[in-house]
């Protein structure tokens, strides 16, 4: 399948361009399937040396437990550097998505936390795993996407991007977000994971799990913080997750896909987009675009 090879070549080129042109780059590592592919490409790009880029995980403290286990295991196996950051203010305020809602939780524990982490470490290039096929407002995103000193994205003032000639010039305090997987689709990601034998969090595979209905989604009873009235409704179901985020905000789908082949087959037949399970995208119309302007990835 030569198209995966071509996507790989393009992504490796982008990753090397970041390291060659920026002083202090970082890769956002969200532990999901796209991050797994990005990390794999990062190691390939700089072989035989260790990648000269640390990983940053913005931990909202509400991620699935299996995600955190997987993160720590992978980092050890691959010998890469990982920075974990949680918003100290959010910790103080005891932000809880069940109490404060998805909007406040996402804003404080994700968007604000990311901005704070970037300010603290002064990263000038932040590599992220977003893909253009994920959502309409992403379709026009550049591969090297410029952010002002307040980390804001201005959809009307983006640099034209021609050929593979990326403009990497920025002033002090400004930064770029770089998306090496821009041209990959969800199907490409899974096919590549299969072809390259890349480990992913087991939550992607169907299994009997204890889930309960919450705000229109089936969420996993992942720990004791789930309120009693939701727990009461919990039932065991054969489910898997198409995307991974904070467990109270990520809906499971009923599925029997237990391995990569079955996931790929299911995807080809799927009638809904992968973001459908994400509660945070539905707050309001155009909400992804709005979040991006504010500094969300």
């Amino acid at each position: 399948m030569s198209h995966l090879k071509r996507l790989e070549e393009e992504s490796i080129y982008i990753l090397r361009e970041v390291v060659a042109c920026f002083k202090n780059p970082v890769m956002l590592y969200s532990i999901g399937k796209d991050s797994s592919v990005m990390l794999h490409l990062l190691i390939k790009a700089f072989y035989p040396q260790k990648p000269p880029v640390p990983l940053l995980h913005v931990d909202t403290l509400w991620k699935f437990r299996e995600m955190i286990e997987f993160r720590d295991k992978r980092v050890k196996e691959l010998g890469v550097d990982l920075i974990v950051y949680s918003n100290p203010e959010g910790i103080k305020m005891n932000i809880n998505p069940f109490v404060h809602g998805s909007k406040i939780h996402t804003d404080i524990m994700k968007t604000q936390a990311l901005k704070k982490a970037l300010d603290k470490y002064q990263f000038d290039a932040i590599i992220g795993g977003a893909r253009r096929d994920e959502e309409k407002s992403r379709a026009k995103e550049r591969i090297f996407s410029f952010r002002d000193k307040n980390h804001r994205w201005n959809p009307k003032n983006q640099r034209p991007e021609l050929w593979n000639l990326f403009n990497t010039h920025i002033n002090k305090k400004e930064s770029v977000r770089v998306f090496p997987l821009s041209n990959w689709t969800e199907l490409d990601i899974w096919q590549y994971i299969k072809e390259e034998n890349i480990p992913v969090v087991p939550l992607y595979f169907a299994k009997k799990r204890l889930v309960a209905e919450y705000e229109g989604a089936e969420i996993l009873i992942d720990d004791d913080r789930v309120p009693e009235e939701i727990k009461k409704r919990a039932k065991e179901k054969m489910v898997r997750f198409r995307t991974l985020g904070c467990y109270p905000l990520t809906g499971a789908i009923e599925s029997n896909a237990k391995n990569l082949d079955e996931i790929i087959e299911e995807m080809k037949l799927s009638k809904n987009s992968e973001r459908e399970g994400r509660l945070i995208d539905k707050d309001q119309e155009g909400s992804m675009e709005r979040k991006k302007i504010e500094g969300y990835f």
Partner: protein
Amino acid sequence: MREDLLRFITCGSVDDGKSTLIGRLLYDSKKIYEDQIQQAKNETKKYKNSEDEIDFSLLVDGLQSEREQGITIDVAYRYFSTKKRKYIIADTPGHEQYTRNMATGASTADLAVILIDARKGVLTQTKRHSFLVTLLGIRNIVVTINKMDLVNYSKERFFEIVEDYKKMFEKLKFSLPYKDFHTQIDYIPISALKGDNVVKKSKNMNWYDGEALLSYLDNVKILKSNFTSFRFPVQYVNRGFDFRGYAGNIASGEIEKDDKIIIYPSKKESFIKDIIYPINPENKTFQKSKAITLTLKDEIDISRGDLITKEGEIQPKFNDSFEAMIVWMDEEELQNREYILKIYTKETNATISRILFKKDVNSWEKIESKRLRLNDIARVQIDLSEKIAFDFYEKSKKTGSFILIDKITNNTSAAGMIVGESTKHKKKRIYSPSEIALNQFIREQFPEWGCKSIEEIEE
């Protein structure tokens, strides 16, 4: 199963039905999901005050600010795949003021789909779109004549437009800066709205014996330049204990172990010691790839931006001046100062020393001009602060294209394609007395810097 990647650009004006065509391709190839369709249905009600089932353009138009204005203002990329190919569509708006976006979308495309409204025929914008995509080096064009349902699926009307387009294109060829530019142009009568000849062959046009658009795209052979000389821009020097490799993507040609190579700009020679392909960390296997790391047999000082070529093959031009077609992309017009020129992985200082002529994108006439503004296209002479290796764009896109970056705003001000060698000598830089004194001072006080004298440079 052979699966390949085809990138194409769609060019059409506001009412040509471009969004409908793309929406139809995505919808019929099942790339649009039900939740997205539901969202588009809700928005159809909101923005169009229409109870129509679904407005395809809302399905594909991305940003809220644009939707509210009802226009597409930027390049959007869409994805779908068939059993044969993966497709990336660069969806660009057709308004005159958006030459910049069309050039952007065309720069990475292998093929252009040009839409013509069957009622209107070949218009000024058809000329503009055809000029821009060929200027950017696209050799495969599919002219889709849309809204055939509104001309009663008329065979005569279709062939009339085909003839008009052919005549137009004959003239266009002479206004391109390329000498040996072969193209493949095909024509398909469609109705994007009704679905005729988009994914399925239409029963309404039995007189048409060609393929529907999608199967055409699945089978079309992409014409490329026949340039096969090895070009490897050094992107990143990968250093470690006891290791020094040169990482980058092969721009053209092939290389093997023990091949003799030449490094520009130093013109030093060496041999390939090893080619390192990206190794899978999970199982330590690798496949051939364009993304490689080279090691050499000699210890030579090589840095990012150097170009490695193979001995015995066609060598690049090596000069500090050339002529190029450029598209001005900055809100701020051309200034009489230095810009940063980025060509492959190399950056250097550049000035536009001469505007030979500006080109009208609609009439293709040459216009004399001293100024360049947003969306202008011009043939210019570019002078550089040092000699660099380059090829003509027609031969090698990757070593013949560049961007100009504004040193003050950091904007991408222009994109260019190298089309010729300079006919006039580069203007000599004039040094002020203080610069001459500074040069002398450095040479006397810091001989260990190895600073050249100004006279030496001027020779």
